[in-house]
Each structure stands twice: as C-alpha cells, then as structure tokens.
C-alpha cells in the first residue's frame, strides 16, 4: 500500500510538472494526501525519535527515522526524490542541524522543519535565516505535525508558478488570492503574504528582463557567506552610504559585478525597510517596489494579539513561514540571474511555539524607532547581523545531477563565496558496523536508508557518547526493554 502511495505521489509530481493547469488550482496532490507524505526525521535522541515516528505515523505519513545527520544527508543524496519533507533537530552531535539545513537547501531543496527544545529567540532566528520553513519547539504536539504537509504543497506550488512564469508570456499575471491563502489560518497573514507575493511578482519580472537582455551575465547565487560579506560591507559603509561600487570593493569577491551587488542591495534595502516598519520610510521613497500596502505595514498592527492565540492554540503553523520559502525567486528557476535570497528574509513567519511570550513581543513592536523590533510571532527577523543569511537559491533542475556542496563555507573570502559545484565528499560513506538496534522502530518498507540509519544509529550512539567524553557506556539494549515491556515482565528491573 505504501509503495503504491509512494509511486503515486511521484507520479503526481511528474504530472504536475508537465501540466501547468494542475497547478493553477489548489488541488495538486492526490486525494489521499497528506497521507503518505514521506517524512525524514533526524534526531539524535532515541526517545524523541521514537515519539516523533509514532506521531508521524499516526498522521499517516510515511516515516524514515535517522539519528545521524550524516546518514540523513546520504540517504537524501541517494534518493533525491524519495522524501517530501525533512524534520531535523537543531542540536546533534555529528552535525549542527543548521548545517544540515543548509546542505539540504542547497542540494535537494526540500522543505526542512527544524525542531528544538530551545525556544530562545536566537536559535529560532537562526532557523529563519538558514532557510527552515518552520521551527517547532519541543515537546512537539501531534497537531503541529498534522500540518507539515502545507510546506510541501506550498513549495511545489511556488516552484511551479515560477517555472510557469518564466516560461510563459504572461508577466503581470497575478494568481488568484485564494490559491495563496488556502492554507492560511489567519486573515491578517493573508494580507501580508499577498504583499510579499506581489512584490515578488514585480521583482521577478524585473529580473527576467535583466536576464534576457544580457544573457551572458554570470549567474550569482547569493550564498550564506556571500551575503554575510555583503552585509559586513554595507554595515561598514553605513546603509546610507553603501553604494554598489564601494560595496563591491570591500567585498573583494572576484567575479562579482557591480550590477550583481546593486541588484542585491536593492532587495536588501527593501528588506530593511520592512523590518524597521514602513513608518520610517514613506512609500514614495523612490523605490518602485514598495507598494502602498507595504507602506502601511498594516499586518503588524492588525496582528496585534489577534490571531496569535488562535495560531498557538490550534497548534497550527503559520502559513507565513512559507512566504519565506516563496521560492519564486530563483529557487527553482533556471533563468533567474541573481538569486533573491534576501527576499526570503522579508517574509514573515511564526512558529508553533506555545512558549512565546506575547507581552514581550507586543512591547518591542510598539517602538517605532527601533530597528530591532522583534516580533517573532509575526516572524520578521530583525537583527541585522552579518550572520544573517540568505537561503541558497538552488535550482533543482540544473543541479540535480550534482551534489553541490558549500565548499566555501570555511570562510575563504576571496575564492568565492560563489557556490562551487564539486563532487560530494560525504556520500557513500557507509558506517560498516554491525547493527542490532532499532529494527522494530523503522518502517518496514524503508530498506536501504533504514539500514543505514540503524547502522549509523549504533555508531552514533557510541560516537556521541564518547564525544561527550563521558562515555555513556553501552548502547542501550532496545530489544530487551521492548521485549520485556511487551511480555509484561517488569521492564524496570534493568534500569
């Protein structure tokens, strides 16, 4: 049954890819969707992993568990179309969850949802800036998991729209509002998303024109590092004095042109304006992209307390997180020149976070003069630190045959924060240890990746333990405890 589902889901995507009509309507998934959604869960904690697996299965998703990021990555690489969405913990011993997030964004462009027991603004912000399409705070309720399929649909939809638009002659075509808002839980969010989308439409068209006029322009992908350098340069100069030529000089990235920087700067400015509240920057400040709705920045005030409770209470994810992923900008379009990663930052999103302190949020929002308004619930990332980043705009198609790695992430400034395409280094490293554990917990129909994660799991446990330096001792004998608990004998003795 599951195999069938898998195939059908795959078929649907294929169908969708050939028929643009399917994507105009909201129905672009099979009837049984979201059942059968293929989820990859990555968490080093066995208890959490077990719970998540159970919950996801209860949602009728097809679950693959993984307790090592490396294994997850290689599973994804080996089976690019094998998963619809990834859930990953932030703190893992072998690889930082954010790193994994970056890789996935670069290479597979799957929606990734981060998880953590930490609800600190800093870590959630990191999720935002690294391109997570959502951030769940542990303990994760099943209600939150029931909604994750939205991210998948939205992403595909955006990719298709983009391909459609870049391929078709209809420039100013505004897709109907309904298809955007179908997943939204709050009307206030809709307004914002619409604005973001509208601007993106305009921007997209502008970009396309640039592209077609100078086809020989090298494609620039604004990676994390590149954007960081950019921001550093801008901050050094001061936003008011940051001219593309000077920025370019400061950045010192060979191959980058003044035009690239100018374009990026434009978007960055828009982003900053959004953050600081448009009250400071009236609509007509010479920026053609700033629409009146933007200027009013209505959504902020209209969101005051209004739907927050609804959002949180219902455990629903805010849809705006997806504006973030609104990857119309170059995420999957082979044509777009400069990846408008900065635009991702403009989107607002909130998290399924019942621990958020509303009062705090509201207060900081009231201060119109502060550039650092924090309103996580509205999801506008505000801290303009160099670390802020732009999600990598990775076109799925041209790169599908490569395993792109952010080789330059080690911070070598001059050789380019421009993405280099290299052969994967991590792939195929099998951890050839014998495995005994976790068999019952993995879904039966996942053979290879399951095996890998089992194997890795075993190894991870050992490695993880010794990394702590404290030797958590032996791997816990899961079979024993399970068997014991099943048989009704006291499973507690061995503890």
């Amino acid at each position, binding site marked *: 049954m599951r195999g069938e589902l898998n195939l059908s889901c795959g078929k649907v995507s294929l169908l969708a890819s050939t028929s643009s009509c399917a994507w105009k309507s909201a129905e672009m998934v099979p009837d049984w969707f979201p059942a059968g959604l293929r989820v990859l869960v990555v968490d080093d*904690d066995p208890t959490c992993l*077990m*719970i998540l697996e159970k919950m996801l299965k209860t949602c009728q998703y097809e679950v693959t568990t993984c307790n090592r990021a490396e294994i997850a990555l290689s599973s994804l690489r080996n089976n690019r179309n094998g998963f619809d969405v990834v859930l990953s913990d932030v703190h893992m011993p072998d690889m930082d969850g954010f790193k994994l997030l970056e890789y996935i964004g670069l290479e597979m462009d799957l929606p990734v949802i981060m998880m953590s*027991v930490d609800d600190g603004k800093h870590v959630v912000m990191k999720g935002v800036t690294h391109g997570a399409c959502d951030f769940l705070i542990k303990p*994760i*309720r099943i209600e939150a998991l029931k909604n994750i399929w939205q991210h998948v649909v939205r992403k595909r939809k955006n990719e298709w729209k983009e391909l459609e638009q870049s391929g078709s002659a209809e420039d100013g075509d505004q897709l109907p509002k309904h298809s955007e808002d179908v997943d939204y839980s709050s009307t206030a969010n809709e307004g914002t998303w619409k604005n973001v989308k509208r601007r993106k439409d305009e921007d997209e068209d502008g970009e396309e024109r640039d592209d077609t006029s100078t086809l020989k322009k090298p494609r620039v992908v604004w990676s994390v590092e590149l954007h960081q350098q950019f921001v550093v340069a801008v901050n050094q100069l001061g936003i008011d004095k940051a001219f593309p030529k000077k920025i370019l000089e400061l950045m010192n990235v060979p191959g980058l042109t003044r035009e690239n920087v100018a374009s990026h700067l434009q978007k960055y400015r828009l982003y900053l304006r959004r953050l600081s509240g448009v009250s400071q920057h009236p609509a007509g400040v010479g920026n053609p992209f700033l629409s009146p709705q933007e200027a009013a920045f209505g959504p902020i005030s209209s969101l005051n307390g209004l739907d927050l409770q609804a959002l949180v209470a219902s455990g629903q994810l805010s849809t705006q997180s997806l504006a973030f992923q609104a990857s119309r900008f170059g995420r999957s379009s082979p044509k777009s020149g400069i990846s408008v990663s900065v635009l991702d930052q403009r989107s607002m999103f909130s998290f399924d976070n019942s621990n958020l302190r509303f009062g705090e949020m509201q207060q900081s929002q009231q201060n119109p003069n502060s550039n650092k308004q924090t309103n996580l619930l509205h999801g506008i990332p505000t801290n303009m630190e160099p670390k802020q980043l732009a999600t990598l705009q990775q076109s799925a198609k041209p790169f599908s045959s490569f395993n792109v790695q952010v080789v330059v992430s080690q911070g070598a400034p001059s050789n380019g924060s421009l993405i280099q395409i290299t052969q994967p280094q991590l792939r195929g490293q099998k951890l050839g240890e014998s495995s005994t554990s976790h068999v019952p917990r993995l879904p039966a129909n996942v053979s290879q990746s399951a095996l890998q994660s089992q194997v890795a799991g075993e190894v991870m446990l050992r490695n993880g333990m010794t990394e702590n330096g*404290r030797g958590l001792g032996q791997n816990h004998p899961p079979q024993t405890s*399970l068997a014991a608990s099943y048989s009704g004998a006291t499973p507690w003795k061995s503890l």
Partner: protein
Amino acid sequence: MKPDSADSAMEGSSVQDRVAMRKILLEEGYVDIQFVQLEQLVDNECPDFAQEVMVMYIEDSAKFVRNIERWLEEVPVNFVELDKALHQLKGSSASIGANRVRIQVNRMRDLCKENNAESCKEALKDLKRERLELKDKMENYFQLPKVAAPSSSAGTQSITGGVAP
C-alpha cells in the same frame, strides 16, 4: 515537600486504574499533557506505546544524568559541556512529558549559565531524586489497568491497590 498523595492513594487503594492515577500525576506535576498525548498514540501493533517509550526514557535518562554528573566532577567544571548534557536531557524529558524532571533540568541550566558549580551540584541531587521518583511512579502506573474493571465498584476501598493488568 508535598505529601505524596499518589503513593498514599495507592496505599489507601482508591487508585484502581491509570485514569485515577494519571489525574494525580498530572496534578502533582510528575507528568504533563505531553505524556497524556503519548498515551493516545496506541494502535494494534503497539498497545502500550507510552510504556515502551517511557521505559526507554528512564533508561536513557540514567545515562544522561551520569553524563551530567561527570561533567560536574571535573575541576574546573566545563560549563559548556555541562549545558550540552543538560540540554540533551531537557529534550527527551520535554518530549516524554516528564515535567518535574524537566523543571529540574531547567533549574540546573540556569545555574550552569551563572557558572555556579556548587549550586549545580546541589541541584543535581534534586534532579536525580526527581528522576527516581518518576521511575517509581511510572512503575506503579503501568502496572495498573488502563481502566478499572467494571466489576469493581468505584467507591469501594479495596486492600490491594495495584491490580495487575
């Protein structure tokens, strides 16, 4: 310390099933709503998922606690690693709904942030105690039937508290 009403209830034998005990456990904060949610994840394959995963948690948490302890034994204390170790325990405790344990972990993390080794050591004692108490409660809890058998009348006080499943 609060009187242990769950135990005295057990002894007094008015707790005949998990329903009753759960109420007490929730009231006393041993577990929270997350645990209750886990209990609802049952199916034919896995009739007592909550027990399964609780067993795993109790076992794993022992290791995490040992880990925490070892970091505290270092001289000087490595607070960065200690915090990581605490974070691990916090994650699983939150996920299983081990409320009191999680609260203790948070307490320790705060002390850890203050680099207060002595207070951390004291807090560790509390943490260990909470964990053991939870283990105890859970042992009792999972031996109770999910719902009291219809034949036993609700109000009677029978001598045997925990009826075997």
